[in-house]
């Protein structure tokens, strides 16, 4: 009998392709319309891997720990490699093999939680091996914490399983919603900033933290629209959510910049309103823009280098929040790992500068 073997690695990108699409598709779709040229690197990997017929792809500082108020029963911190102060980079499937073969000098990685929901296969195996060598953060995109639907316990259980399996030092989700009546847009939709939404999302974050047995970080999203019924600015909403739920804040400076430009406020005003003790992680990324009837809308593509204005914001953030774990995120048109490492090195240089100023 002849078995026709096909390397599963070649197609395993399929799994994470699906996931990374949430972010990359979100951004690439907007940028390039329905053209497929901006498929995420993960998906390009699927294609090229299959084509070649071979295997292609396939701080914690004391402050952080002290603020893990909900504790981590059964999961000793010693099992979780702490995330250091040097900047990390977002892990994407197309870099799995290179990371495993070259062990590049990356301080830590952050992976999208949903990409590793599978029971087995090349991706979860790769992440387990990468996790054995590097500190890890898991970053969710699908929990839909702001939805008026009941909390999706099936999804939450899968997050819990991933946390048990990969023991991430940091665990995060978004201040957004993506579903109602069981239907998902699989995008990070902005909430109306009302008292009702504040109570609702705070309760759900607290429920998720109770279920997971640990504190999570909540990230601000980019937004292209504001709801008429909003009664407070986003920074006030985010600050209140952190206070009421006990969650930490993952501050995405690019998202602040994009949202500030789209809605006409000063990004620094946002930073000034955030409690420094709540900020546990910073994201840096790139964006692009679209024109509508002569007006510019910034789009959170995460597909370009960090822009100068966001680097300036980073400097301000370092002075206000101190040294916080920083991550370079890149989700569409994913470049070589070296490009991401160069961006991380740039962040580290800014950190050193800010330290010198602070001292």
């Amino acid at each position, binding site marked *: 009998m002849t*078995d026709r073997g096909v390397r599963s690695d070649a197609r395993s990108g399929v799994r994470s*392709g699906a996931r990374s699409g949430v972010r990359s598709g979100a951004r690439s779709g907007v940028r390039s319309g329905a053209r497929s040229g901006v*498929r995420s690197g993960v*998906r390009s990997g699927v294609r090229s891997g299959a*084509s070649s017929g071979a295997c292609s792809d396939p701080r914690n500082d004391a402050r952080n720990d002290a603020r893990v108020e909900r504790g981590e029963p059964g999961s000793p911190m010693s099992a979780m490699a702490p995330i250091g102060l040097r900047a990390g980079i977002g892990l994407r499937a197309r870099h799995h093999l290179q990371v495993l073969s070259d062990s590049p000098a990356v301080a830590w990685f952050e992976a999208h939680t949903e990409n590793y929901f599978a029971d087995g296969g090349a991706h979860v195996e790769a992440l387990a091996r990468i996790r054995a060598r590097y500190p890890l953060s898991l970053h969710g995109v699908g929990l839909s914490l702001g939805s008026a639907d009941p909390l999706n316990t099936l999804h939450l259980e899968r997050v819990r399983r991933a946390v048990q399996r990969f023991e991430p030092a940091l665990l995060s989700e978004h201040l957004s919603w993506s579903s109602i009546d069981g239907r*998902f*847009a699989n995008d990070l*939709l902005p909430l109306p900033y009302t008292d009702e939404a504040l109570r609702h999302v705070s309760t759900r974050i607290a429920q998720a933290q109770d279920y997971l047995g640990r504190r999570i970080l909540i990230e601000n999203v980019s937004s292209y629209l504001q709801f008429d019924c909003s009664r407070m600015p986003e920074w006030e909403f985010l600050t209140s959510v952190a206070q009421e739920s006990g969650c930490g804040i993952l501050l995405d400076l690019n998202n602040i910049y994009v949202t500030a430009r789209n809605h006409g406020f000063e990004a620094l005003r946002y930073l000034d309103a955030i409690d420094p003790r709540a900020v546990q992680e910073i994201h840096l990324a790139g964006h692009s823009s679209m024109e509508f*009837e002569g007006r510019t809308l910034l789009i959170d593509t995460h597909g370009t280098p960090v822009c100068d204005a966001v680097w300036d914001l980073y400097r301000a953030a370092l002075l206000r929040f101190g040294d916080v774990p920083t991550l370079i995120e890149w989700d569409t048109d994913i470049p070589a790992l070296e490009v991401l490492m160069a961006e991380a090195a740039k962040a580290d240089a800014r950190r050193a500068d800010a330290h010198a100023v602070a001292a």
Partner: protein
Amino acid sequence: MPSLRELQVDVMHALLDGESDRALEHAVPLIAARGIAPSHLLGVYAHTALTNFTESISSSFPAIRRLVGDDYFRCLARGFHARHPSLSGDLQPAGRRFAQYLLELHSDNEYRYLGEVARLEWLIQETLLAADHGPLDLAKLQQVAPADYDDLRFELHPSARLFAAPFPCLAIWEANVGSDAEPEPIDLAAGPDRVLLVRNNGQLKFHPLSRGEQDFLQSLQAGERFAAAVERGAGHGELDAAHGEFDVAQGDARAFDAAAVLERFVLAEVIVDFSMAALV
């Protein structure tokens, strides 16, 4: 002021239920108008939802995409999205019903094979994402008295999937994911596929099956006793008695055939565990 739920229902309707003015009529007034028209802003999000979904389907069904071309694939994805939007915060399962959608779309024309190939692609997804399992513990099996074999319930590898179709779908799939070169024509009348998919040590493998083997494995997968599975397999008289030395039971030629099949699928790490059937 709308409730959170009311707002979300109206916005989701605008994002998922088409671009007509009607789909937007409840959502547009919810948005603070400060420059760019709310319909454009909603359109950005709607486009993102469809693109994310399409990308997910595309990565799950690379052979279908290649067979129909990018433009028609996007049309298919749009139609499928309208009928079966994502029901999960994880996009991976989004394509679960895509094969059925294609089968219904082309139920009575020459493109019926598309749905069958899509069914194979979805099973490949499941095989690639299933849990791992080691080979069967032969020492453990040797402790079972031959007289008790009939009552064993053999278990297939978690990644094992059985596929049968009236077309040579595996050949079509291989021709459309293996190379960028223009594939050789495939004769749809070249015969039906009966194949078992399994992932061993990271390798996706396809085992061609006889009808008897297919029924035998299907029976095992359904949790039936070994004796019942053998009976189903032998029902087609196709089990090859010419080889196999696994002395499961004596005498009976039918049992001897079953032993060969059992050996083949144990060695191929398709059958990976067993338990004694509960005595009821």
